C-alpha cells in the first residue's frame, strides 16, 4: 500500500511545477460555484491544489479522499480565469484526475460507458437510438415551451427528479448524414463537428448551423464516423479512452482540407482546441504535431460568423426579449463572449437584455451533474433566478450542455422561458 502511494506521489511530481505557482491567496473562493454552496476549502481550487501537493509529498495517505475532492468540481475554469497568479488550474485538475484514476481504477459503471460505448460510436449511437424510441414509455412531457421530459419512474437511478431533455426522434446524423461541399462566394471551407449532445438531443442546433453556413456559401465537410470529443472520459481520468477518441476524430478530419473546424458546443471547442494538445505530451513528436495542427483549426461557430464571415452589424431589434448565458468554456477558456451577443443582436425581432452574472457557471459540469446532482441543482437554481429576473422570454447560449442544465432548472420551476442556441436565433433571420 505505502509502496503504491509512493508510486502515486511520484506520478504527481509531474504537476509540481504548475502547482507551486499557487500562492494560496484564496482569491478563487470569490468565484468558485461549488465553494459558494459548500463553503468548504477542500472544494475550492486552493484547497484541491494543497491536497494534491500533500499527496505528492506523501503527507496524505487517503488518496480516495483526495479523489473525491477532485471530483467536487465543475471544471468550469472560473478559478483559473480569476487567478492573480495565472495558475493553470484546469490543466492540473485534469492531469491529476488521470493520475489518481490510474492509481485508483475507474468505477465500474464509467468503465462500461467510456471503454464500451464512447469509443465505439456505432454501438453508442445504436444504444441511444433505441433509447429514443422507447423513452416515451418512461417520460412525460413536462413543459411545452422547454420541451423537456421528466421521469415517470420515481427515483430512477440517473433520471431521478431531473427534467431531462428527450433524445431527439432523429439525431442530426440521420437528418444530415454527411456533407462534403465546395465553398461558394463565402470563400471558406469548414469542417463541422456537431458533438454528441447536438447530434443526439439538439439536432435543430446542428441544422441551424448548417443553414447559416449554406446561406453564406461556406463549403462544408461533415464526415460520418465522428465520435465524442473525449471530455467525459478525460474528466473521469480515463486517458486511454480519451486518446482513442482523439485519434479516431483526427483520422476522420485529416482526410480533407478545410480552413476551420467548427463546433457549436463550447465544451467540445475548448476540449479540442486546448485539451487535445495539452494531453498529447506522451505521444510521438509527429503525432503531437498532427494534433496541434488540428487543434489550431478549431473555432467556435459564433466566433466564426462574427470574426471570419463578418455577418452584418447589429441592429436595434425589438420583440422577443432574449438574454445570454456565457458558457464557461466559451468565455473563460476561449475568451469568446462578444461574438455571441453581436450575433443575437443581428436579429431584428430580438430585444437583447443582459442578465446579472451572465458568466456565472450554470452548474452542469458534465458528470458533476450526475455525481452531485443536489449541488449542481443549487448552482443551476441561481442561474435560473438570474434568467427569470432579466425578464427574458428566451435564454440563448453557446453550449448544448448548458442548454440541458438550464432547461432542467427552468422546467422544474415551471418558468415560461425557452432555451435556445445562439445559432438558432441567428438562423431565423436568414
Amino acid at each position: 500500500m505505502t509502496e503504491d502511494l509512493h508510486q502515486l506521489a511520484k506520478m504527481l511530481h509531474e504537476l509540481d511545477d504548475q502547482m507551486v505557482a499557487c500562492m494560496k491567496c484564496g482569491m478563487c473562493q470569490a468565484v468558485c460555484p461549488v465553494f459558494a454552496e459548500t463553503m468548504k476549502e477542500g472544494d475550492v481550487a486552493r484547497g484541491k491544489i494543497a491536497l494534491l501537493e500533500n499527496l505528492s509529498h506523501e503527507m496524505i495517505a487517503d488518496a480516495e479522499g483526495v479523489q473525491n475532492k477532485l471530483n467536487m468540481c465543475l471544471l468550469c475554469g472560473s478559478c483559473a480565469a480569476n487567478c492573480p497568479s495565472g495558475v493553470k488550474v484546469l490543466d492540473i485538475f485534469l492531469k491529476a484526475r488521470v493520475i489518481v484514476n490510474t492509481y485508483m481504477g475507474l468505477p465500474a459503471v464509467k468503465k462500461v460507458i467510456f471503454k464500451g460505448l464512447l469509443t465505439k460510436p456505432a454501438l453508442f449511437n445504436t444504444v441511444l437510438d433505441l433509447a429514443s424510441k422507447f423513452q416515451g414509455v418512461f417520460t412525460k412531457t413536462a413543459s411545452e415551451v422547454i420541451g423537456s421530459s421528466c421521469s415517470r419512474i420515481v427515483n430512477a437511478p440517473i433520471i431521478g427528479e431531473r427534467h431531462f431533455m428527450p433524445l431527439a426522434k432523429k439525431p442530426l446524423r440521420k437528418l444530415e448524414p454527411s456533407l462534403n461541399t465546395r465553398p461558394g462566394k463565402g470563400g471558406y471551407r469548414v469542417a463541422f463537428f456537431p458533438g454528441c449532445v447536438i447530434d443526439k438531443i439538439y439536432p435543430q442546433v446542428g441544422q441551424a448551423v448548417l443553414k447559416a453556413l449554406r446561406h453564406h456559401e461556406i463549403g462544408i465537410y461533415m464526415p460520418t464516423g465522428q465520435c465524442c470529443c473525449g471530455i467525459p472520459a478525460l474528466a473521469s481520468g480515463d486517458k486511454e479512452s480519451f486518446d482513442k477518441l482523439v485519434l479516431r476524430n483526427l483520422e476522420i478530419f485529416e482526410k480533407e482540407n478545410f480552413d476551420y473546424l467548427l463546433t457549436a458546443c463550447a465544451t467540445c471547442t475548448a476540449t479540442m482546441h486546448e485539451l487535445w494538445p495539452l494531453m498529447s505530451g506522451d505521444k510521438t513528436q509527429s503525432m503531437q504535431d498532427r494534433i496541434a495542427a488540428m487543434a489550431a483549426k478549431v473555432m467556435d461557430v459564433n466566433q466564426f460568423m462574427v470574426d471570419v464571415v463578418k455577418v452584418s452589424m447589429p441592429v436595434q431589434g425589438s420583440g422577443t426579449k432574449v438574454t445570454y448565458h456565457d458558457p464557461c468554456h466559451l468565455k473563460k477558456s476561449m475568451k469568446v463572449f462578444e461574438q455571441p451577443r453581436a450575433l443575437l443582436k443581428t436579429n431584428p425581432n430580438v430585444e437583447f437584455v443582459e442578465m446579472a452574472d451572465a458568466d456565472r457557471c450554470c452548474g452542469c459540469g458534465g458528470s458533476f451533474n450526475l455525481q452531485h446532482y443536489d449541488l449542481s441543482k443549487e448552482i443551476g437554481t441561481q442561474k435560473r433566478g438570474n434568467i427569470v429576473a432579466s425578464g427574458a422570454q428566451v435564454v440563448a447560449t453557446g453550449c448544448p450542455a448548458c442548454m440541458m442544465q438550464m432547461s432542467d432548472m427552468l422546467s422544474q420551476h415551471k418558468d415560461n422561458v425557452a432555451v435556445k442556441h445562439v445559432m438558432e436565433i441567428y438562423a431565423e433571420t436568414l
Partner: protein
Amino acid sequence: MLSTSLLNEFKTLLGKDNVMDSESDRHAYSYDAAVLDSVVPELVLRPTTSEQLGRTVALCNENKLPMTVRGAGTNLSGGTIPTKEHGVVILTNGMNKILEINEEDLYAVVQPGAVTAKFAAEVAKRGLFYPPDPGSQAVSTLGGNVAENAGGLRGLKYGVTKDYVMGVNFWNAEGEYIKSGGKTVKCVTGLNIAQLMVGSEGTLGVFDEIILKLVPPPVASKAMLAEFDDINKASETVAAIIANKIVPCTLELLDNATINYVEDFTKAGLPRDAAAILLIEVDGGHIALVDDDAEKVVEICKKHGAKRVQMAKDAAEKNKLWEARRNALPALARARPTTVLEDATVPRSQIPAMIKAINDIGVKYKLQIGTFGHAGDGNLHPTILTDKRDKEEFHRVELAVDEIFDVALSLGGTLSGEHGIGTAKSKWLEKETTKATIIYSRRLKKAVDPNYLLNPGKIIGG
C-alpha cells in the same frame, strides 16, 4: 487523537457536516496565504449560530484544545495556521450574515464571517459607504479584517478597519459572552475592549458580532496617473500634495521593477524607463471641489518634475489608468513560482530611502524584488519573487526580509502596516518595541486566556 465521545458531542452540537475530521478535509485547513510550512489541524469545526460558537469555544477550553479561528484564510502572516498539537480550526463562514444596516444611525451589525466586499456592496445599495478595502476584499471576512486591522487603498484619507469598529461582542476563552462598545457615536462605558480586539489575531477572544461605522459616500472622484524619472520627485510630489491640504483617497506607487513586470505581462505601453508611477485619485462631496483638487494635483505633479500626467475624463478612462495598479500583484506573482509579499511601512517622507534600500538588498542577495504600495501612508509592498523549493535561494530571501525590516525600523517605520504579525513576524516584534512590551502583552493574554488556548503562539509567541 480526540476521543470519540468528544467528536460525538461536537457532532450533536454542530451537525455532522460541520465537524470535519477526515484527512482530506483537515489538510485543506493547514495553511493560509503566508509562505510558511503548513500544520494540519486535528479537527475543523463550523458553528452556524452564536450559541454554537460559544459552546464550541467552551468545549475546546474544557478539553484543553488550542483553537484557531479562520475566516477566509487570506492573511499573510500565518495567523490561521493551527497549533501543532491537537490544533482545532474554528470556521466562521457558517456565520456570515449582515444582521443590520442602520441608515439613520450610520452603523451596521455583522457576523464575523460576512465577506468584506459583499458587505460593502450592501452598504452601497443603501447609499452609504464602508471604506476599508483590502486587496483581498472579494473573499476576506470582516472578522478577519478586524482581527488583522486590515488596511487598503483608501487608508490615507479614510483610515483603516480600526477607524470603523464601534463595538465587538465576543466569546472569551471559557466561552462566556463579552460585550464591548456599542451603536452610539459616543460610548465610554467600561474599558475600550473593542479596540483591544482590533488586530488581536484571534488571541484574545472569538468575535461573534461586530458593530461597524458607516459614512456617507463621496459623490465624485477623479483619477490621475503621473510618471517620474526620479523616485525622489515622486516622493516630493506626494509630500507637496498633502502640504497643499489635499488628501487623495488613493495615492499608489509602482516602482521601476514593478512597472516592468506589469509591462511584460500586459504590454499596455507603460514607460519602462520611468523610476516610478503614481496613481492618484481624489474624491469628495461636490464635483466642482473634486475638479479643483484634481487640477491642483496635476499642477503639483508637473511642478515637481512629473514627466507626464494623464487625467481620466470618464469612468472608462479611469478604469484604464487603474489597470497598471490592478495588475501589479498578478504580474509579479506570475514572474516566479513563489511570491513573498511584505508590507514594511515607513513615514511617507522616507519612501525614496526605503525603496533605494530595498533595491540594494535585492542586488546584495541576488533577488528579484518589485515594490508597489500605498505612497500616501508609506505602506510599501516589497514583493520578492523566488522559488521556495530552491533552499539556497530561499535562505537568501529570509536574510533579505530580515534586512528589509531592519531598514524599515531604522527609518522610523514598522514591521507591518497591515498584514499582521502572526507567526511570520513575531520574532522581530521585540526589535520594534521592547522586551517589556512583550512581557506586558503576554501577561495580558495569560489573564484572559489562562490555558493559552486562543490561537497560541501568534503575535507574541510563547
